[in-house]
Every structure is written in structure tokens, then in C-alpha cells.
């Protein structure tokens, strides 16, 4: 079997493990769904009548970013519990596969939350165009790519609940700018290109540095 096939198989096995754990424990996804829905509902009633669409898009991104943060804060919990991360680190597979598997699983949870959030946003605020949806997709990839790496760093520390937002939120600002821009700008394609570039750069960085995050 080629090394690429082995690598892909490892990534799929690790991501499938996370999905199976979530199906059993239901620790993360219900919390994310509840959070994103309740946040949008609160914003709907909090926003003064006649507020423009631009502000509404900003609120959508606040809801998405904090929903993602909720998912990321729990992403490595199964590995922490029984020391399973050390088991994965000791395994002879490429360690970046651990990061990529976690990124794909986190992306699946975030996508599920957004499948609920976007229709809810359209219902409460304004319809969403295809460029805005593409912005959500690209920004979500970026969130999970960098978020999984930072969550692994935070998971190894005692103050993980504080450290993860401190590390993640500054790096998520470009994603918010790109996501909002894709939703409201007439030149949405530029913002989509920016988000694509962000995803590519941070995917390469995370893939290359994960090994140093999980080893001493």
C-alpha cells in the first residue's frame, strides 16, 4: 500500500473515531447547535428594528466563531481523558494525520451547526446568497485548520479554557473580516480568494508544526 493511501486511511480512521465518540457521548454537537440557535434568537430580539444587513452579518459571524470555539474547546477532551493522545503520539503513523483527522471531525461538527445556523439567520435577519455561503465554507475550513492546532496546544496546559480563546480569537479576526466581506461586499470574490489563501497558508503551517505541539 502506498504511503499516501496509508496516510489517508489513518486520517479517515481518526476522524471516524471522533464522529463515533460524538454519536455516543453527544458532548459537543448538541451544545453547539443550542448555542448557535439561541445566540441568533437573542440577537434577533436585541437588534433594533431597521438595523441594516451589514450589522446582521457581523452578528452571524460572532455566533459562528463562538460556536466553533465551543466545539474546539471540547475537541481534544477524549484524548485527554485516558491519555489517548500519548497513545497516538507513540504510534508510528505520521503525527500530522492526528491533526488532520481532528480537523475533519471538527469541521463536520461545525458544518452541522451551520446547516442549522444559516437557515435560522435567513429566517431571523436576511436571505443569504451563494457568495456568503461560500465565505462561510472557506472560513469554517480556516477555523478548524488553525483551531485544531491551537486546541491541541491548549489541551496540554492547565488553563486551557483561557488559553484557547486567547490564542484563537486574534487569529480568527481575518476569517471574520473575510466572511463578513464575502457576505456584504459587492466584490465578494476578493474576500473568497483571501479566505482561500488563509486556509492554504494555515493548513500548511498547522500540518508542519503539529508534531512539535504534541511532543516535548
Amino acid at each position, binding site marked *: 500500500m502506498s504511503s499516501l493511501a496509508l496516510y489517508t486511511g489513518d486520517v479517515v*480512521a481518526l476522524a471516524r473515531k471522533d464522529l463515533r465518540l460524538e454519536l455516543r457521548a453527544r458532548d459537543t454537537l448538541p451544545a453547539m447547535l443550542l448555542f448557535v440557535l439561541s445566540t441568533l434568537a437573542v440577537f434577533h430580539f436585541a437588534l433594533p428594528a431597521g438595523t441594516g444587513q451589514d450589522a446582521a452579518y457581523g452578528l452571524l459571524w460572532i455566533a459562528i466563531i463562538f460556536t466553533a470555539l465551543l466545539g474546539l474547546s471540547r475537541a481534544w477532551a*477524549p484524548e485527554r481523558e485516558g491519555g489517548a493522545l500519548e497513545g497516538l*503520539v*507513540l504510534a508510528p503513523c505520521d503525527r500530522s494525520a492526528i491533526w488532520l483527522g481532528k480537523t475533519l471531525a471538527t469541521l463536520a461538527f461545525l458544518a452541522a451547526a451551520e446547516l442549522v445556523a444559516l437557515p435560522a439567520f435567513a429566517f431571523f435577519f436576511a436571505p443569504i446568497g451563494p457568495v456568503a455561503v461560500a465565505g462561510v465554507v472557506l472560513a469554517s475550513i480556516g477555523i478548524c485548520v488553525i483551531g485544531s492546532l491551537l486546541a491541541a496546544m491548549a489541551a496540554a496546559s492547565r488553563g486551557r479554557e483561557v488559553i484557547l480563546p486567547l490564542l484563537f480569537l486574534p487569529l480568527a479576526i481575518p476569517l471574520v473580516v473575510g466572511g463578513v466581506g464575502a457576505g456584504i461586499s459587492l466584490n465578494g470574490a476578493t474576500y473568497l480568494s483571501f479566505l482561500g489563501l488563509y486556509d492554504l497558508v494555515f493548513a500548511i503551517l498547522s500540518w508542519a508544526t503539529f508534531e512539535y505541539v504534541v511532543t*516535548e
Partner: protein
Amino acid sequence: MIVGEGLEKRYGRKRALRGVSFAVSRSGFLLVTGRNGSGKTTLLRLVAGLAAPSRGTIKVDAERADLGYVGHEPLLYRELSALENLELYGRLYRVPERRERSGMLLERFGLWEARADRVSTFSRGMTQRLALCRALLHDPALLVLDEPFTALDDDGALLLDHELAALAGERTIVLSTHDPVRVNSLATDRLVLA
């Protein structure tokens, strides 16, 4: 196969290990003993590559694929079943016919009946048995066992005695314990940490 020279490990200002040197030849059996807090776990983590020494050098002539490790934590997923855990690790360790190998180990360690149960429902002793299955799954050339008898009942401890007796002389083993009498006859080298 393993050579440690002047090993020291610090966690912040606390020194967990101080000036330890040792060597284990291929197929040797190093028995590590010492009081609580003497650095046994730290030393075994250095051997396994899970930690790096603050000072000194350690050379382990083994790849990651050759290492089987049992630590204080079982390194298992609590919400996966015993079989699912072994299948995941079997995949990552490239174990050929991993289903058969997993089944054989579960049978040998008395966990076959509980193979579909989640680890979170296991007793501490059953979890330790499964951790031993995980460490032996890929038939490693180097076994690093940190107090492997912990939580095992008499049957489990006897089972591990037989397993170690079968592996001693064929595999390199580094084992720490508070009950050295149990494995003393198998040891080729001894290290007492103060």
C-alpha cells in the same frame, strides 16, 4: 539497545530525576525500583520518548513501531469498546490481520466476553488488562512497562507473570514496580532510584 547517561529531568524548579545512568542490551530486562517520587515514571517516559531529558543523553535503538508502552494512564478511548480501541491502534501500528490479533489478545487477557463493552464501563483492573493488550498488539521489540501489575487481581497478575516470562530473553523489557520479587528472576539488569 538503550543507553542513558547522566539523565536529569526538571519540571519547572522540581527535579524529578537526578544524574541517572544505565544501559540495557538487546533482549535484556531492566528492573527499575525506587520509592514513590524517585523518578521511575519519569525515567520510563524518557525511554519511551514521551519526554526529553533536561540534561544528559538517552539513546534508544528502536523505532516507534517497535515500542510497546504501558503507563499510569491506559492510553485508551473511554467511549470506544475494547475491540474498537485495539482496531484503531492496530490500524495505526500497521498490524497485519489486526482483528484476529486483537481477538487473540482479548481472549488471552480474559476480556473476550467484554470486547464490545465501552472502556468507561470497565473496572480499573480490566482497563489495565486492555492497556496491556494495546501495548502487545504489534508484537513490539521493546516493552516499557510502568508498574504494570497495578490494579490487576491475582489472575491478572499471574497472567502477566506468564506473559513476561515468555517475552523475557526475546524482547527488551524495561519495567518499574514496587513488587520486585515478582519479576526479579527475569531481570538481567537492575536500577534502584533514590
